[in-house]
């Protein structure tokens, strides 16, 4: 049954890719679908890029096993979107072209800024990819019984097909199809679960607290240290505004006003989805039962599929499984495209070629970069088989929040920002996130099984984000750059270009 839904999705998405491939002739089409995506489409695609399998399966599982504590994640993943809206979306659309580094480098020296931005971006993309690929391998093994390595290879190859031939146009449509499937699948699942409780979420929550105790509706052990929770919260909130594959989506719409509209839609969809995870998690807790969920996967990742089976039988299980698979494929495609844009547009064209390159050449390099990243994703997925990679999404958000977000904000809004400041802020942000997470309980206790950890917080955000801001500002003040200061007037002019101007 799962196979039928699975093949329908693959056929549909490859059909879309075929149509998109015929229109993907230029670099601009490859990276941005020619700026032709509408506000609603981009809103759905943003939601598609953001709602990963980790949020669908992971959060539903967390809620099913720990109740209220799991909801803290649901909420944390949403609150970054207003920040994207208020500080980033419109100025980014007006100042950049293909990558967020376009904006940081706008009035600064190109090569040093782009190299530093690429390191941060590629680190974010790599850790995010590893988390998705390992999740994909485990999920497909559980759902379809394929061997782990085959599952990882299938995801990598199908995704490569989308990105390589269809570029941003195909990736966008895969995201849209996936977002619609995921939202309607989750909604249907929630409604079917609630039908057992007279369609009242409160009756569902009551049933959960009768069965497992009132503690499931109250905060528990998860947030034992408020600094831990603040650190994770800060990374989730500001990291959303620094994820390269999310930022890249703002170039696919025609102007800043459409970018604004697309964030409104995205936040509405994503918020709705995370509210549904409340129902799905508690629904699985009551209707499937915690022992049955734990028996299949100790982390609870199978809670949503099991709930589907409990309320809708094998056919519905097949549908929800196919949706989960589509979710992973789409997120991986978005990440790969963002990584390819960094390699070809930032590193090859603007560093190696000093900004002088033909459209043809850039498109060729972008496609080569896509193949490299696709193969890298497969290899990383296989290397990290069986490893605990749950922390890697948190790490990706921490790097995005520490390396990308401060430099992006300072370059757009602070006149005195300099090349050296941007460079140091991005490098220190990336390095401090990596070093601090290595010494944190996340790696020392959970992965390496050491008795103690030198750094007390599980997520480095609370230290690395302010540090990156401080380093960027201190360096800029100590070594001023009059040229960058003088060119700030251009930034101020361009930032308001709400029309369909392309730089």
């Amino acid at each position: 049954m799962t196979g039928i839904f699975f093949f329908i999705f693959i056929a549909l998405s490859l059909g879309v890719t075929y149509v998109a491939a015929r229109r993907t002739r230029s670099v601009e089409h490859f990276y941005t679908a020619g700026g032709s995506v509408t506000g609603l489409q981009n809103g759905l695609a943003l939601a598609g890029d953001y709602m990963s399998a980790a949020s669908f399966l992971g959060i539903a599982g967390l809620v099913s096993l720990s109740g209220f504590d799991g909801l803290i994640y649901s909420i944390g993943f949403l609150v970054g979107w207003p920040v994207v809206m208020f500080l980033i979306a419109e100025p980014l659309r007006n100042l950049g072209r293909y990558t967020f580094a376009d904006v940081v480098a706008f009035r600064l020296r190109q090569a040093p800024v782009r190299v530093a931005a690429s390191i941060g971006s590629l680190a974010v993309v790599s850790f995010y990819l590893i988390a998705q690929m390992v999740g994909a391998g485990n999920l497909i093994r559980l759902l379809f019984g394929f061997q782990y390595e085959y599952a990882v290879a299938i995801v990598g190859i199908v995704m490569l097909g989308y990105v390589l031939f269809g570029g941003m146009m195909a990736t966008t449509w895969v995201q849209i199809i996936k977002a619609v499937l995921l939202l309607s699948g989750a909604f249907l699942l929630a409604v079917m679960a609630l039908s057992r409780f007279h369609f009242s979420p409160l009756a569902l929550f009551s049933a959960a607290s009768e069965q497992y105790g009132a503690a499931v509706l109250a905060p528990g052990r998860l947030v034992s240290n408020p600094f831990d929770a603040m650190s994770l919260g800060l990374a989730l909130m500001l990291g959303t505004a620094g994820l390269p594959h999310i930022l890249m989506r703002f170039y696919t719409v025609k102007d800043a006003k459409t970018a604004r509209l697309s964030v409104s839609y995205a936040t509405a969809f994503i918020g709705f989805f995370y509210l549904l995870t409340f129902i799905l998690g508690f629904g699985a807790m009551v209707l499937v039962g915690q022992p049955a969920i734990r028996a299949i996967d100790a982390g609870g990742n199978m809670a949503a599929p099991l709930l589907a089976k409990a309320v809708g039988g094998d056919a519905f299980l097949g549908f929800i499984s196919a949706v989960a698979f589509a979710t992973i494929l789409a997120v991986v495609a978005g990440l790969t495209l963002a990584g390819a844009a960094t390699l070809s547009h930032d590193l090859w064209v603007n560093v190696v070629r000093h900004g002088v390159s033909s459209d043809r050449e850039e498109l060729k390099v972008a496609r080569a970069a896509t193949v490299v990243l696709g193969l890298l994703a497969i290899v990383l997925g296989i290397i990290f088989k069986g490893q605990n990679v749950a922390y890697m999404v948190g790490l990706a958000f921490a790097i995005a929040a520490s390396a990308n977000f401060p430099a992006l904000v300072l370059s757009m809004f602070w006149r005195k920002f300099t090349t050296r400041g941007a460079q140091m802020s991005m490098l220190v942000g990336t390095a401090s996130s990596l070093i601090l997470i290595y010494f944190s309980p996340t790696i020392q206790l959970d992965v390496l099984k050491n008795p103690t950890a030198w750094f007390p917080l599980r997520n480095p955000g609370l230290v690395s984000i302010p540090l990156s801001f401080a380093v960027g500002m201190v360096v800029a003040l100590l070594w001023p750059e009059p040229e960058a200061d003088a060119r700030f007037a251009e930034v101020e002019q361009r930032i308001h270009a709400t029309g369909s101007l392309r730089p």
Partner: protein
Amino acid sequence: MNHTEQLKALDDARWRIAIALTAAMMALYFGFILLVAYAKPMLGRLVVPGLSLGILLGALVIVAAWVLIWIYVRWANTHYDAAIDALRGRS
């Protein structure tokens, strides 16, 4: 005011609103996290049968994100866009 000064004033206004709304979102979210950390028994109290204060406030944080975005979009669609168009028309 000349053209540049007007643009500067508009820029400052957008910046002030963006900062204020961002600060509001952070205050709400981190306020919620602090309650989760320090007021566990209070959040466990039931508002009505089945609905704890914690779940209610959590859902309200999501609703608050929607409301803040709605406030921004309304301001931008009515004031900001019109002001930009007016300035552009004259330049």
